[in-house]
């Protein structure tokens, strides 16, 4: 698989879209040569990130768009998630203390545990947020 864009898709910010997003990530991961475990980790990270956009970015607005781009970059896959929701303050995004047993707040932790890099990058003009996640192909 040569370097470059391997997938680009745009979805409405609806929970029922997550299955299709997960399938796209898995397919791209396996096509890039990822093993099952690595592909699964990529699926987990992108799913959790999209959940955050749906729930916290668009606050349940089902018409907000999410754009997923997957790029091959050497020995890594780079996942970029674009949304047009209000700008996130990265300092406010913190994984919670896992010793504090409660139902929610796991998404950010799962993303950071499964991916090698996970950060907000400067969005293009007119765009709300871009989350960039990178993982080495294994």
């Amino acid at each position: 698989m040569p370097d470059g864009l391997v997938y680009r898709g745009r979805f409405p910010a609806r929970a029922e879209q997550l299955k299709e997003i997960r399938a796209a990530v898995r397919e791209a991961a396996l096509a890039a040569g990822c093993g099952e475990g690595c592909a699964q980790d990529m699926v987990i990270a992108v799913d959790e990130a999209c959940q955050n956009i749906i729930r916290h970015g668009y606050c349940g607005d089902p018409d907000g768009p999410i754009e997923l781009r997957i790029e091959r970059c050497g020995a890594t896959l780079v996942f970029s998630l674009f949304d047009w929701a209000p700008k996130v303050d990265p300092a406010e995004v913190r994984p919670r203390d896992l010793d504090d047993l409660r139902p929610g707040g796991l998404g950010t932790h799962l993303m950071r545990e499964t991916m090698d890099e996970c950060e907000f990058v400067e969005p293009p003009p007119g765009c709300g947020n871009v989350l960039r996640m990178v993982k080495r192909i294994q």
Partner: protein
Amino acid sequence: MEHAMREEGEVVVVSFSGDVDLEHSPRAREVLLGAVTRGRRLLVDLSAVAYIDSSGVASLVEAFQASRRQGQRFALVSVNAPALRVLELARLDRVFTIYATLAEGLDASA
């Protein structure tokens, strides 16, 4: 996501199949909390769960905590590899009681 609930003696077994994700976790939560109200030991069979995300895990945590408040036991059975991966990442494999099979889970309550 599909679910089934049955009673095996003094144990309620809830089985999920398919994806317990953001789309389906509200229903999973409803099913699990309803099972807790039956006042029996609860086993949650995840053998047919293809995918579970943090919202699905949250529903398990909530049911676990509700069970604990009522002095009832709660355990997971037949947690397949993808689900176990998420539980391990969340460090919940150390919190939940997990049995490899439903038979083991039922035997443990006998």
